[in-house]
């Protein structure tokens, strides 16, 4: 069976617009959560989030191109450019494809169009509203830029979208369906309407993201993207590619129980499935990058699932306190913490965690990064709708 490696990475997220600086921020325990400066912010009950700041689209895209790019696609495309550049690849191999996960697609575009015709009484929306807002815009636009004529589509599984995208890309290369894939996630739902929608569900924290903490009171929304270049291992080694990690296994499944409440059993099945797919024993795994949203329900169920999967214990952290919940991009940006751990840069601490909840008893990395030899790790992503997707990575 073909083996699959990650040879390039790129990101635009609330912490930074580079991989190296994002990893430095994760390890240092920085947080990008702040008071939001949005029009009509006084009409929101929750006024915090993790926005991407200092992102100047005009610096990255010419005006004619920009008219076709929703903010989420801008993040995705800029991330893909970084990923390809860092891989040293000058052209994508024939048959390469693109899979990008997104929960909201061109959410900002849709919101602006509806505001124009409903609230402002205008008679028309921007002519490119459809190609901007469609879910597959990020994948298609990346494929156009890099000439990827292989399997290219969007995956939408809410907060597990990026893990599904990367996992499917891994399976395609492993099965021989494609020689290389660009894969990851992108979302930009940090808008007035996006926040209103989440506010309605009453799971947002008004004052901060505190994964696994006794005082946790909800998630904090973020935005951004991360894209990776995945290649067949022999081809990557033959061209002397910089190998960041090996994607060793993937498992996905569904709780088939509840639209919003998570199931510990479903999370456990996905983690065990990823271990089995990778041929890893629990004892070989040195780190679990948790989904860790800071909601009461997720963190309790996830902790139970991790304890059941790793009876011998394992180091765990969540990075959502650093960059917020990036929705469909969450698993992609958070995978950087796994790359850092596997490359000996340390295990990122759980920003926001001060007083671990006894309900979430785990070996939580908190306050400071942990130095540890990590030769394999898991990356969890669990979504509303009861969808679970777990990646297993090995040190290259």
């Amino acid at each position: 069976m073909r083996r699959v490696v990650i040879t390039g990475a790129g990101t635009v997220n609330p912490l930074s617009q580079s991989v190296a600086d994002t990893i430095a921020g994760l390890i240092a325990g920085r947080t990008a959560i702040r008071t939001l400066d949005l029009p009509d912010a006084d009409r929101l009950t929750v006024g915090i989030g993790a926005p991407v700041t200092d992102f100047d689209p005009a610096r990255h895209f010419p005006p004619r191109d920009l008219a076709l790019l929703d903010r989420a696609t801008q993040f995705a495309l800029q991330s893909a450019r970084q990923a390809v550049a860092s891989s040293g690849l000058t052209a994508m191999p024939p048959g390469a494809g693109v899979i990008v996960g997104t929960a909201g697609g061109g959410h900002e575009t849709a919101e602006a169009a509806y505001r124009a015709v409903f609230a402002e009484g205008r008679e028309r929306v921007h002519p490119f509203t459809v190609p901007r807002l469609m879910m597959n815009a990020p994948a298609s636009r990346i494929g156009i830029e890099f000439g990827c004529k292989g399997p290219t589509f969007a995956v939408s599984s809410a907060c597990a979208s990026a893990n599904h995208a990367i996992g499917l890309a891994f399976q395609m290369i492993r099965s021989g369906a494609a020689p290389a894939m660009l894969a990851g996630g992108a979302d930009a739902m940090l808008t007035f309407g996006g926040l209103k929608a989440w506010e309605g569900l009453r799971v947002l924290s008004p004052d901060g993201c505190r994964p696994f903490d006794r005082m946790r009171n909800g998630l904090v929304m973020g935005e951004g993207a991360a894209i990776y270049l995945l290649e067949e291992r022999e081809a990557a080694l033959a061209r002397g590619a910089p190998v960041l990690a090996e994607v060793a296994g993937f498992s996905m499944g569904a709780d088939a129980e509840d639209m919003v409440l998570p199931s510990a059993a479903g999370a456990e099945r996905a983690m065990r499935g990823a271990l089995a797919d990778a041929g890893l024993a629990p004892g070989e795994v040195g780190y679990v990058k948790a989904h860790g949203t800071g909601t009461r329900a997720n963190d309790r169920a996830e902790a139970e699932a991790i304890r059941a999967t790793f009876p011998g214990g394992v180091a765990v952290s969540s990075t959502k306190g650093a960059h917020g919940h990036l929705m469909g991009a969450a698993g992609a940006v958070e995978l950087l913490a796994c790359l850092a751990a596997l490359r000996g840069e340390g295990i990122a601490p759980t920003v926001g965690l001060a007083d671990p909840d006894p309900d979430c008893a785990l070996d939580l990395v908190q306050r400071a990064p942990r130095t540890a030899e990590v030769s394999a790790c898991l990356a969890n992503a669990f979504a509303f709708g009861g969808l679970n997707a777990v990646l297993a990575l090995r040190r290259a």
Partner: protein
Amino acid sequence: MTADIAAQVTAILAREALLDATEVRADLPASDLGLDSLGLVEAIFAIEERFGITVPFNANRPEATAFGTATVGEIIAEVEALVRARG
């Protein structure tokens, strides 16, 4: 006015819980309404829309308002207080 609020809150809770309004007594604990987490959020939404108030309910801290743990009577009292505060 107060009797009216009580009747309307009771009717909304009964509708969301698929109960007859006569079953939604003031001493009934909210947890016995049989509402799941989404049903509770929908009931609060309906009450907010009806009275033009904002109920500070967070699903991660349900005990912080009457909707989390108290009785139907205490929920009604909380809504009445929010309506008074609204002015």
